[in-house]
């Protein structure tokens, strides 16, 4: 466990240092959300109705932005070679790296959501609902995105390929994330149904993601 702990600590430390991904993700999220009212116009009711969808899209794109460096950075500087040679199972290493990425890049997005909710005319409960669905749903984005990151590891400019590979996989998360937030705001249907499915998607990707990423890392290495 101390081995994985060391890896998580290192990745978080790199992410919060200069040039790391943690702050860039939040800034991008902020930019996307701030641009929306300018594009949609000052219709407060419309903004409130679209708010959850905008926040979810922003979070999805922001988490993709930093995901492509997840394995590429380690591949480029040779760390991946040493990681592959170690006794620690590659599946656990992948899971630890994804967890570190979520803690460093995913959690700040959730923390920033209440502030950004203000810009979209969302009231307190609605913002809370969106933050809660992001908390439940962003692990799924990271752990499915990791599969794409592992596939694109040997490519020089894999970022775009990553987006093309990963975005279709994140459609179910987006649908149920936004649905759960809207239900919580409008309140006609039960909140627990879409929210349970969102949690299930996250749990499934927690299991599948590390195995798929480890398999593609092993296969892609040359």
């Amino acid at each position, binding site marked *: 466990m*101390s*081995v994985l*702990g*060391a*890896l998580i*600590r*290192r990745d978080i*430390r*790199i992410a919060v*240092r*200069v*040039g*790391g991904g943690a702050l860039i993700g939040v800034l991008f999220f902020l930019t996307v959300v701030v641009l929306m009212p300018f594009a949609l116009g000052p219709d407060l009711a419309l903004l409130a109705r679209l708010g959850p969808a905008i926040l979810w899209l922003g979070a999805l794109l922001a988490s993709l932005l930093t995901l492509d460096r997840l394995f590429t950075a380690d591949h*480029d*500087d*040779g*760390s991946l*070679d*040493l*990681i*592959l*040679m*170690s*006794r*620690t199972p590659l599946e656990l290493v992948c899971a630890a790296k994804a967890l570190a990425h979520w803690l460093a890049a995913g959690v700040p997005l959730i923390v920033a959501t209440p502030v950004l909710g203000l810009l979209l005319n969302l009231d307190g409960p609605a913002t809370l609902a969106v933050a809660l669905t992001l908390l439940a749903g962003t692990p799924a984005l990271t752990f499915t995105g990791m599969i794409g990151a592992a596939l694109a590891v040997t490519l020089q400019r894999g970022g775009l390929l990553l987006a093309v590979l990963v975005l279709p996989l994140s459609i179910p998360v987006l649908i149920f994330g936004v649905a759960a937030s809207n239900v919580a705001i409008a309140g006609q249907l039960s909140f627990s149904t879409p929210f349970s499915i969102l949690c299930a998607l996250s749990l499934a990707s927690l299991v599948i993601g590390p195995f798929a990423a480890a398999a593609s890392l092993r296969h892609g*290495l*040359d």
Partner: protein
Amino acid sequence: MRLSGRNLRCLRGGREVFAGLDFDAAAGEVVAIVGPNGAGKTSLLRLIADLLTPAEGTITLEGGDSEMTVAEQAHYLGHRDAMKPALTVTENLTFWAEFLGGAPADPAACIAAVGLSHAAALPAGFLSAGQRRRLSIARLLTVRRPIWLLDEPTAALDLASQRVFAGLMTEHLATGGLIVAATHGPLGIPARELRIGGET
């Protein structure tokens, strides 16, 4: 302990790099792989480290820990130094000591052994090429592993550092280790040559 390869054939991108290659390395011995550029020196090291799969042939280790693979008992020092520019020298080395497991030596002592104590708190991104190489060499000292796979270990090292490194290699051999090194220049210690890919 004896590391040997028999009838190894290596393909890279569908092209044959070498075939029918045999080698032996015993404990306390240095095998220097020499050959022209592109002859497959790095590929051979990566085959031993299990980072590439041989198209034919086998690599066996006699007398090692039977519970572990060859790769798990080996240190690999490649062209790329596996150090993060954003982390300090000490942080980088402490991470590898913890990650590689076993009973890690004190990182500060390893940094001192390669003469980098003055830069211990500096981010690795500010180090020169030779200093980065010395930091990679310090990694070999953090965790005891009997097999050292070294790819151009003396590249970018000044003469004083080469002598220090030769001393560290001699120490490793004296404690029953073995070294396989791909090299163009002299290593500074007696080595058995393994020539691949014709004359240089």
